[in-house]
C-alpha cells in the first residue's frame, strides 16, 4: 500500500467534508442563562465574608483567655513575679518602652 498516497487521499477526503456549522436551537439563550447564573465575584464581599467567619473563633479565643486569666490557680505563677496576669501581660507588652525609659534616665 502506498502510504503517502493514502495520506493524500484521506486529507483530501477530510477537506472535501467540512464539519457542519449547525448550532443547537436557542444555544445563545443557554449561554446567556449560564452567564446570568454565574456568581459575581466582589472583592469586598470576599473580605467581609472572611472577616465575619473569623469573628466567632476570635471571640472564642478571647473568652478562653479571659477565663484563664480570671480562674488561673495561684500556684501556676512563679513566686518572684507579680501574681496578677494582667500586670504581667502589660509588663511584657511594654517591656521595650520601659527599657528605653530606663536608658534615657540613666543618661
Amino acid at each position: 500500500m502506498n502510504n503517502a498516497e493514502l495520506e493524500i487521499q484521506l486529507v483530501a477526503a477530510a477537506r472535501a467534508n467540512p464539519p457542519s456549522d449547525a448550532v443547537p436551537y436557542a444555544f445563545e439563550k443557554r449561554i446567556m442563562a449560564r452567564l446570568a447564573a454565574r456568581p459575581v465575584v466582589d472583592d469586598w464581599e470576599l473580605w467581609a465574608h472572611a472577616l465575619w467567619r473569623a469573628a466567632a473563633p476570635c471571640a472564642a479565643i478571647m473568652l478562653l483567655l479571659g477565663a484563664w486569666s480570671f480562674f488561673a490557680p495561684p500556684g501556676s505563677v512563679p513566686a518572684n513575679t507579680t501574681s496578677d496576669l494582667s500586670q504581667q501581660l502589660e509588663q511584657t507588652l511594654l517591656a521595650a518602652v520601659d527599657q528605653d525609659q530606663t536608658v534615657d534616665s540613666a543618661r
Partner: protein
Amino acid sequence: MTLGQGMGILHRMERTEAELIAAVLKGDAASFEPLVKQYSPRIFATVRRYARRESEVEDIAQDIWLKAFERLNSFRSEAPFEHWLMRLAVRTCYDALRAHHRNRETTFSELTEPEEDWLDRFVTQPDAAKEDAEAARQLIARVLEQLSPSARLVITLQEIEQRSVKEVAALTGWSVPLVKVRAFRARAEMRKVLAKIAKEKYL
C-alpha cells in the same frame, strides 16, 4: 448593491460589533447575545473538527463563550473580534484534546466494514477510491484520533484547513519555528499510524 453600499453596510456592522463589545465591557451582559448568535456557527464548525461526540461539541462551545465573556477586556479592537475569538476557540479545543488524551482508554479498534472496503478499493484502484466517500472521512477521523493533541491540531490546521505556518502560529500561540517542528513531527506521527493500519490489514 454597489460596492460603496456594501462597504457602508460592512462599516455599520463593524461599528455595531464594536458597540456591542463596548456595552458588554460597561456591564451590559445582554449585548453579548448578538455576538454569540453571530459567531456560533464558526465556533461549532471549529469545535466539530476536534470533538469526538456531539455532546462534547456543545460543552466545548459553551466553554469557549464563557471564556470569551470573562476575557473580553483583553480584546484589543485593532484586530477583528473574530480573529480573537477563533484564537480562543482553537486554544480551548487544544486544551480539550489534551484532557482527553490524558484520560483516553481505548486503543485503535477494528476498522468498520465500509472503512475496510474503502481501503481495499484504494489498494486495488487508488484513483477509484472517491475522496468524498463517507468511509474515507470516518477513516481520517479515526487516524486523527490516534495522534497526539499537538499533532492533531497542526494536521487539522495546516493540512486540512490549509492554513499557513504564520496563521497556525497566530491561532495556537506557538512560535513559527515551533509550528514547523510540530508539523514535521505530526506528519511523521500520521505516517506511523497509517503504516500501522496497513500492517494490521495486509500483513
